[in-house]
């Protein structure tokens, strides 16, 4: 009944605001070195793919992408495998002091990364985790666990208790109840958690820089950070790399945004 105009404006503003920097980078990535350094900047690129070439072949971007996919994917998987049962136990089973556990988890995730980076590096060094994918996954999982567990827990908590009880009467142990009943129902929550974790792992820079010092294992953020040589700011390559680095996530988001939202709404803030 009310006018849709404010809404239209809102939509426009939202889309514009979210996209314009990215679009500018997209344009930049299609420019030539000279266009990039032109003052004033040119609006429209000549559409040269040179920077994509250099980013892909000189800087081996695909290797970095691959590493990131491995690390982020692995992290997500591990984080779910570890987090889901914990979340279930915390939300649905009787655990002494579960509130403390949850609170504790949250506190842990408050600690500055730079502070724990050193010790973590030590541990990894001791167990030979440096310059390995699993080595960087472990801290990622740890740091994303609280988030994952919180989302999943509050999601499980929303599922009707009757279902678990029915499962019990039907002969389920806690484990089979989780595995056969609760898990399938929690799919949206799991989606949400996965996306959040994945994006975290995909974007994380600091630990990766510290732990992965060999090009063979380095992830995208590090790889991109390494673009900067001494001679010129490689804006073009950066832009191209950024575009390439973001596309997978954009796709992911476009594919799963419905799930992300529904997952969150069934979870986190429902009170």
């Amino acid at each position: 009944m009310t006018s849709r105009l404010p809404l239209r404006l809102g939509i426009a503003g939202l889309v514009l605001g979210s996209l314009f920097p990215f679009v500018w980078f997209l344009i930049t990535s299609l420019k030539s070195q000279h266009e990039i350094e032109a003052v004033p900047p040119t609006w429209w690129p000549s559409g040269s793919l040179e920077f994509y070439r250099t980013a892909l072949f000189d800087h081996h971007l695909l290797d970095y992408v691959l590493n990131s996919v491995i690390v982020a994917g692995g992290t997500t998987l591990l984080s779910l495998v570890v987090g889901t049962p914990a979340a279930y136990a915390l939300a649905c089973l009787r655990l002494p002091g579960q509130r403390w556990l949850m609170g504790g988890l949250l506190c842990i995730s408050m600690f500055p990364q730079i502070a724990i980076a050193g010790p973590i590096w030590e541990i990894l060094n001791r167990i030979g985790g440096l310059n390995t994918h699993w080595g960087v996954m472990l801290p990622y999982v740890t740091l994303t666990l609280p988030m994952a567990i919180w989302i999943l827990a509050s999601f499980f908590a929303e599922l009707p208790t009757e279902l678990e009880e029915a499962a019990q009467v039907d002969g389920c142990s806690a484990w089979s109840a989780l595995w056969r009943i609760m898990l399938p129902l929690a799919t949206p929550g799991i989606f949400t958690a996965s996306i959040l974790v994945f994006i975290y792992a995909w974007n994380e820079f600091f630990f990766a820089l510290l732990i992965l010092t060999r090009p063979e294992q380095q992830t995208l953020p590090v790889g991109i950070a390494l673009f900067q040589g001494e001679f010129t700011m490689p804006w073009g390559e950066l832009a191209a790399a950024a575009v390439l680095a973001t596309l997978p996530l954009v796709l992911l988001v476009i594919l799963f945004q419905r799930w992300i939202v529904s997952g969150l709404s069934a979870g986190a803030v429902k009170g």
Partner: protein
Amino acid sequence: CHATGDETATGASAPTVIRFVSWKPDYPRAWDEAIRIFTERHPHLRIEREIAPHSSTAYHDLLTQKLKNRDPSVDVFFMDVIWVPEFAAAGWARPLNDRFTEASQEAFLPSTLEVGRYHGHLYGVPSRIDAGLLYYRVDLLRKYGFEPPGTWNELVHQATTILDGERAATPTLRGYSAQFKQYEGLVCNMLEFIGSHGGILIDEDRGAARLSDERTLAAIEFVRARLLGPLASRALLTYQEPESLAAFARGNAVFHRNWPYAWEIANNPDRSSIAGRVGAAPLPGSDGIPGVATLGGWLLGISSLSRHADEAWEFISFLTGHDMQRFFAREAGIAPSRTVLYADPELLTANPQWRSQAAVLHSATPRPRSPVYPALSHIMQRFFSRALAYPGLDLEPEARRAEREMNRLLDLTRSEAP
């Protein structure tokens, strides 16, 4: 991505692995080539590189992270000339006296040897030398009948004249381009201004900071009053080497302060719109006081925890050997650390500027040498950057505060002296 080298996995006959920590090389191909040659000559050795970001600081942090956790897998690493005391004091770098014989030292530039020394021991072999140079637009100076400036005031005068003349033609043209971002480079730049105004940063004998000397303050005042704004864009406050060089290479600056490598690029038609119109000269002084160039450069060191010290030495002496220095000089325009190469005809034809630069390179001024240099540098960076970023800032008290902090650190190290 290719398999990671893992020494334990490979069998007994497998070559010894030397792990070499380095920053992202500017000329990857040159480096690959060099390492290929080395492994060809030493089949029993294999070089494994660990790459850190190019920024000297980022590289330092990564390397020390390994060293302070006593990671034995590190063998060879680059040291910035300012790190030697820290690495020596912390016991990360291994003294090289027994290997790096007097005889072999002869061949290197004394200044580069000096920075590798700490409490009488040598910790690094000079691999490349750097020193601040003043690049200028030959065409513009000639057009207005100027010679490269001998003093900063001349520079200001020339630049102003030229800008007045050229503004219409090229509105983007500014007088001066250098590195004033809040980072190590800022200290290098300021050291040159201060030195050329007769000031110093630290009185090393007394171990006291000297930021509040009026000569020092005068130098800073000169930069923020005469240079930043009138002559140069305040954007310099965000510039490191790449940005400042880019500005110059795009023909947007009359004068440009940078390291030797800049010559190569500024004169490379693919990278520069002013190729062939670039000149290099020593940095200006001020009346009576000669110009000062900050000494930079990289040394190669061996980790004190390395299990393959001998092989590591093999590698280092190869990289710093005559041929390789020459190779890098030719391939990458990197200023070598060996004296003779500055007389090498082929190299001179490739890099004519060395004729004029040699003197500068050989007489460059090192930054304060202290095991806590990074901390000192941070204080100075903060001070300088604030001085330049806030034109109204009252320098005196700011300087004193910085001095106090620096002195506290210096006192700590006093106990260190044997």
